């Protein structure tokens, strides 16, 4: 596996901490709570338990029960309550325990979270964040492994972001909390306790809507995000043995997508592989394909390849490795666009 190293500005040296992705989220939440007294956290088991993944570990002890609120088991209820809080001047950050548990709240998200600004012509707006761990690969029980970002990128009125590393996790989280509009913050749970990174102690933001080029090559553009990044990087490293080099782009934001970074790379390489663990049909990969069609059609040297989860419910964990994209499948796709 390739370690993703962020360049920390020189003035930050000595002012950073080595954190895992989940620790960076905890640090981001702590920073936000300290920064604005109107920010509060809501969710199941986030108080004394610190969240089932410990994202909120220690925060209730530090900020109190008023700011870090254990809610009843009630996704529609506390997402709905967060709507009422957000339109009344607070900045709620809601934790959904697993993305696969968000479905009861979907009505609130589709009918109110995403629409309140437009249906009141800006009189009310909802500065709220919904955090949710997503994805397979950690041998979770049924429903715990869903990756349904496309259910949300399709809804007008909510931004969708997904960091793949500790630095981006804190920076994107703080950007999401600062954003005047609702943001769905997807957390790749299989990367929670992976590589550590140097993360600035202070408040900083990573701009929503901007991807990042994390590898440079000449032959193929590989587009991915979140939990797929290490898989993509492994595949890309191995392709170097055959003298095939790739631009690797971590999209980081799934709505609105970074059109420029996609077009710039595709117009250079002319060959594209999109990797996501969500189901193929109607996945964000389809939207990326459409952007490439709109911006870079005449630059293409081969049909766009997608490496995705299959159009089946995410299987129980004994088959999750077969469901998930692997470095092998990514390498095959890269080879296919080269051979075309």
């Amino acid at each position, binding site marked *: 596996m390739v370690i993703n190293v962020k360049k920390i500005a020189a003035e930050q040296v000595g002012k950073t901490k080595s954190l895992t992705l989940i620790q960076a989220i905890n640090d981001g939440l702590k920073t936000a709570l300290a920064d604005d007294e109107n920010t509060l956290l809501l969710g199941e088991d986030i108080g004394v338990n610190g969240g089932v993944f410990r994202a909120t570990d220690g925060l209730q002890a530090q900020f109190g029960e008023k700011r870090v609120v254990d809610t009843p088991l009630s996704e529609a209820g506390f997402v*709905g309550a967060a709507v*009422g809080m*957000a339109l009344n001047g*607070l900045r709620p950050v809601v934790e959904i325990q697993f993305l696969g548990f968000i479905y009861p709240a979907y009505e*609130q998200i589709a009918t109110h979270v995403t629409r309140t600004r437009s249906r*009141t*012509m800006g009189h009310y707006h909802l500065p709220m964040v919904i955090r949710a761990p997503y994805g397979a690969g950690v041998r979770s029980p049924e429903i715990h492994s869903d990756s349904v970002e496309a259910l949300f990128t399709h809804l007008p*009125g909510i931004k969708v972001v997904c960091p793949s590393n500790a630095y981006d996790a804190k920076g994107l989280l703080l950007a999401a909390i600062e954003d005047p509009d609702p943001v769905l913050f997807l957390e790749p749970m299989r990367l929670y306790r992976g590589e550590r990174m140097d993360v600035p102690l202070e408040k900083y933001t990573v701009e929503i809507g901007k991807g990042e080029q994390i590898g440079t090559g000449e032959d193929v553009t590989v587009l991915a995000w979140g939990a797929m990044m290490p898989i993509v990087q492994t595949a890309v490293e191995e392709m170097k043995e055959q003298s095939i080099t790739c631009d690797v782009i971590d999209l980081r934001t799934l*709505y609105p997508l970074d059109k420029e970074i996609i077009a710039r790379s595709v117009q250079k390489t002319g060959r594209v592989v999109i990797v996501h663990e969500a189901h193929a049909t109607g996945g964000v990969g389809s939207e990326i394909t459409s952007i490439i069609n709109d911006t870079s059609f005449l630059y293409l040297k081969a049909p766009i390849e997608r490496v995705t989860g299959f159009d089946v419910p995410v299987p129980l964990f004994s088959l999750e490795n077969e469901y998930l994209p692997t470095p092998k499948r990514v390498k095959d796709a890269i080879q296919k666009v080269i051979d075309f």
Partner: protein
Amino acid sequence: MKEKYPLLEIIDKTGKLVPNAYEIEITEEEVKRFYYHMIRLRIYDRKGRALQRQGRIGTYVPFEGQEASQVGSALALQSDDWMFPTYRDHGATLTFGADLDRLLLHWNGRVEGCVPSKEKNIFPAAIPIATQLPHATGAAMAETYKGTKNVSIAYFGDGATSEGDFHEGLNIASVFKAPVVFFNQNNGFAISVPIEKQMNSETIAQKAEAYGIPGVRVDGQDVFAVHFAVTEAFERARRGEGPTLIEAVTWRFGAHTTADDPSKYRDQEKSEQMRDDLDPLLRLERFMKNNEMWEEEWITRIKQEIEHELDEAIARMEAYEKPNPADMFDYVFEEPTWTIAEQKEMLRRSVK
């Protein structure tokens, strides 16, 4: 359960004070204020139906029969409180201070109609059933968070009690003692489904027991009963004692909406025959006549004023500037995303 949750009534069907119902003093000024708002809603509601029939507005949601419930509750709010209505509660919003012009624009399919007036916290009417209950809970929790004494009220119908959001809203509010009043108007029908098919419980008020909060059942045709029950619940909430569930037993004489034909599911003639007992305006009129508060001259004058107010507002609604397609794009996010900006430009070019 009906014994346990008796119907609170202050003025009976004949317009007489129910003995010992409530220790209150009802001033003539207050009575006239209630009557003014109720007759204003009656005239507005009938005009709304007429405008729809004439094709001058879109689908309209009538509330005739529910004026006492809506006026009695809305007049219990204080200026900084929060109101979370449904699509049938425009009588309550109008009474609380919603802008009449905007309301009419709403029925004419204009988004301007959902924009609250600057002075009052009125969330635009919830269309998905019961979704506003958690909002009212959250807004109330935010008031507690900020340390104010402001409260919120959620309006909902009998059918809404079958939805999950009813339970989730009440449960969360009860756990956190949120200063919110859940104001149910039980008009007996959720579109076509009668209450016996909606729930197996005898009353809606009794559902409060499951949350360990007070449940109150009032005669929704008695504006005083509604007003005092809601006022009392607000006082509890402002004291930090948490939410109350109020069931106002009421009746809608008309259709669910102007797109609905109630004769398909109930006997409308029978409904009209009940008017003598159930029309909240008749009841208040009788009370006023019994207590020498009925002044024909005043009644005629306020009716004329209301007619005039409405006619002027309707004229403004019909003369309102054309909708601007840009409005569709400009309020989705604070800053339009590039997809929205491109699509806005695409539409602009295509309609040029």
